[in-house]
């Protein structure tokens, strides 16, 4: 396999103290890059590595990053440094005075990218950087190749870091298990190592070990025992994984519904414009991110956290505006709030469409929200995890506001008994406006989080409004804890159903369940008790 040949060649390249430069082969190799064709580029990589040119690692690195350029006229190849300066690919010397505009990029496709990753990954097995070694061992595990056994063994001999050593051992086990060769003891050891790893890849390799034509009965037995053990572990982890997915879906539902639990649940406004508040929060995030990127690029990582208070204020202010101009005339006529807020939602959607255009707006993820990590056999994506944490934090903060602040006390007083509260000197109009603003502001905050997982488009709110109403009603109108339990419960139920029923049927089943559940408990999960209910 050429890939392994590259690894070996590059290793040789590094180990050799100072390989004499062969000018001609390097130029021949580089000439392939100027043909602007993928098969030529492929050959160029092989020849470049074989040539042993000292610039080879730099050139390959540049190729992978899209920094390798060529001059279609003179057929010279250059690579750009991070600073933007150009170096000549053949000599590594600074190439000043070359007009960058005339240069063309050497194009990549996935085949070339894989080839480069393997070539550079082979190098990384011996890298002084521990993280790079770990990544290289992981690549070797996922692309087991009998010919890389020597390189892995060489790396194992040098390795001192325990984690890196374990990763290398697993990579070695993968190679041994899939190669169908080697002594029996070696194969049994590999199976044991893979069983300890216990993931889907390990299962796949163990099965391959069992299927090897010359596998002894002992190996076969060990492999089948290992496979069933891994399968059992996997099914346990899968259940946990589903629970995590459910928790994460539930937290999105909760986040979207929590503002509605105030405006609808507590204040009694059937707020069809709730989804648009979420959308406005998401657009605030987008605007803020653009603003930060334009004026303070150093802070761009922080634009998402900054967007949280900003979205709260923007959506909250719009909410107060709506309350003062429309809703306050409709207290005591809850059904009419449905009609008016429906109208408001149409206006807000079209306003955003007119201002920003109908297409999606890009909101990028800050680094701390990108990628995923493993917790045992559980894969947790950072973005989702932060959303779960964020949702619970918002919920907790809301509880504090409602229970421990004078505003919360007054708000509860007004919603429980408006006249009495008014008689006690509470300005009920002001409290109403602020409460509606609070609900809208929280919806805006939800928009910040949703901008990370969904489209930022004028239709964003529409996709959450029905689910939000379901959650609030299922949990019991006027009960925030009910909303919490309902959102998480429905999320988890959905995710446990999905693997069996598929996404659509799972959703239908959940809806039917809500309909049936309401028959059983006509006032939701946590019904309010007492005379107030029948009023």
């Amino acid at each position, binding site marked *: 396999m050429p890939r392994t040949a590259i690894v070996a060649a590059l290793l040789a390249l590094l180990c050799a103290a100072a390989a004499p430069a062969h000018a001609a082969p390097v130029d021949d190799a580089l000439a392939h890059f100027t043909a602007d064709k993928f098969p030529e580029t492929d050959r160029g990589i092989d020849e470049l590595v074989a040539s042993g040119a000292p610039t080879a690692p730099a050139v390959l690195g540049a190729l992978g990053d899209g920094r390798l350029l060529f001059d279609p006229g003179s057929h010279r190849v250059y690579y750009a440094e991070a600073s933007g300066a150009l170096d000549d690919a053949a000599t590594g010397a600074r190439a000043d005075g070359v007009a960058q505009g005339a240069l063309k990029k050497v194009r990549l496709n996935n085949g070339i990218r894989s080839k480069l990753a393997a070539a550079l990954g082979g190098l990384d097995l011996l890298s002084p950087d521990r993280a790079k070694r770990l990544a290289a061992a992981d690549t070797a595990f996922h692309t087991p190749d009998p010919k890389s056994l020597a390189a892995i063994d060489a790396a194992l001999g040098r390795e001192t870091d325990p984690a890196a050593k374990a990763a290398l051992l697993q990579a070695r086990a993968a190679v041994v298990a899939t190669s169908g060769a080697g002594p029996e003891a070696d194969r049994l050891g590999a199976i044991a190592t893979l069983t300890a790893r216990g993931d889907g890849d390990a299962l796949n390799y163990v099965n391959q070990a069992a299927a090897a034509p010359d596998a002894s009965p002992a190996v076969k037995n060990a492999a089948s025992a290992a496979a069933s053990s891994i399968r059992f572990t996997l099914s346990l982890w899968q259940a946990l994984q589903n629970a995590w997915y459910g928790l994460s879906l539930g937290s999105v539902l909760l986040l979207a519904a929590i503002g509605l639990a105030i405006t609808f649940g507590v204040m009694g406004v059937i707020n069809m414009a709730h989804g648009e508040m979420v959308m406005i929060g998401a657009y605030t995030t987008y605007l803020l991110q653009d603003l930060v990127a334009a004026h303070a690029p150093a802070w761009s990582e922080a634009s998402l956290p900054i967007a949280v208070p900003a979205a709260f204020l923007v959506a909250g202010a719009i909410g107060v505006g709506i309350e003062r101009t429309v809703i306050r005339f409709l207290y005591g006529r809850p059904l009419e709030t449905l009609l008016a807020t429906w109208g408001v939602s149409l*206006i807000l959607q*079209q306003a955003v469409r007119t201002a920003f255009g109908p297409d999606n707006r890009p909101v990028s993820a800050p680094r701390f929200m990108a990628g995923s990590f493993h917790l045992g056999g559980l894969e947790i994506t950072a973005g989702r995890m932060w959303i779960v944490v964020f949702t619970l934090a918002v919920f907790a903060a809301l509880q504090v506001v409602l229970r421990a602040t004078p505003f919360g006390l007054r708000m509860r007083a007004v919603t429980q008994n408006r006249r009495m509260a008014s008689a006690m000197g509470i300005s009920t109009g002001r409290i109403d406006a602020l409460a509606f603003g609070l609900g809208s502001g929280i919806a805006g905050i939800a928009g910040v989080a949703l901008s990370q997982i969904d489209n930022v488009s004028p239709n964003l709110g529409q996709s959450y409004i029905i689910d939000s109403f379901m959650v609030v009603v299922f949990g019991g109108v006027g009960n925030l804890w009910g909303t919490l339990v309902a959102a998480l419960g429905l999320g988890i139920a959905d995710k446990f159903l999905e693997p069996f029923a598929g996404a659509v049927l799972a959703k239908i089943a959940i809806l039917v369940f809500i309909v049936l559940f309401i028959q059983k408990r006509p006032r939701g999960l946590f019904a309010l008790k007492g005379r107030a209910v029948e009023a």
Partner: protein
Amino acid sequence: MQNHRTFGPRGLVFLAVLLAAAALVPASSLLTPAGSALHLSTYAVTLVGKYLCYALLALSLDLVWGYCGILCLGQGAFFALGGYAMGMYLMRQIGARGSYANPDLPDFMVFLNYHSLPWTWWGFSSFPYAVLMALAVPGALALVFGYFAFRSRVTGVYLSIITQALTYALLLAFFRNEMGFGGNNGLTDFKDILGHDVRSDGTRAALFATSCVALALGYVVAAAVTGSKFGQVTVAIRDAESRVRFLGYRVEHYKTLVFTLSAMMAGMAGALYVPQVGIINPGEFAPANSIEAVIWVAVGGRGTLVGAALGAVLVNWGKTYFTGAFPEYWLFLLGGLFVLVTLFLPQGILGLVDRLTARRRPGPPAERPVAPEEQVLPRPVAE
């Protein structure tokens, strides 16, 4: 016998207009030459025919909401089910004239590799059966759904939201191609109804006249129900459900009955709608459509029957006009209209008319006192 009491002068005018339209519009469309001042184009006929179907839907909604206090946010589901029943009949009438010329299967089943007609489609080549199903399926769904919901005393906003869940679940279900109802593309490209070409002017005029008559019939039935003793009980339920229950009435029976009747009316509206617009697709189940129907009723005047029909025609006419004249801004106009009507015309357009006439002529203010708004929510208690 007691027509005046049942319908009132406004109702009689409404009926007269409908019946006159049923006779005159087809005549104008078919008998006068195009270009004559009296001629109504096919475009106008189908458009108004469509509005009339919406009006019947609004009427059915007013019957449950205006007179029984059940705010159904899933009325569109009954409308769509009726529409599907008719659509299935029309699909079966295409016969071997589809793209694949398969005499037994509609086109979409051919390319989804069906080999035989699913049982849900059996019998739909018969028109009476399709009409029966257009009434029976929505009716049966409402009967079962209503019986259980009203028996468990699901009221107010809880009921509204579960009716919304119902239509949303049906929307998702009908989107599924496995359901065998054509998935997202729905049923379309109809050819014949009762042996007549659906695209001919004569058929369109006949469908228009049928819609007028159906709306008139719907109105007569709704007015008869609401004007009867039974109707007085439902109004009482709307205004004070618990008291009616304590008086010994089986509230759930009344509600279930009205709900079922209303669903059947909505189903009929859907069945008439489909041949006129030429397509039925799961989009009709969208919760937004049902909310819009509520808005028509509110705009026209809740609890007036005539107002509901009027509201449906007006709002839809506005939509047709605005989407053509101000394609970029029509949502502002429509949204603004909803807000303004709610704020300034709490009793809808008919309420406004009543107020104006009452001011002009002293005497009893409104002919039909508008009910106090029922409390849909429990008095909320913050956590």
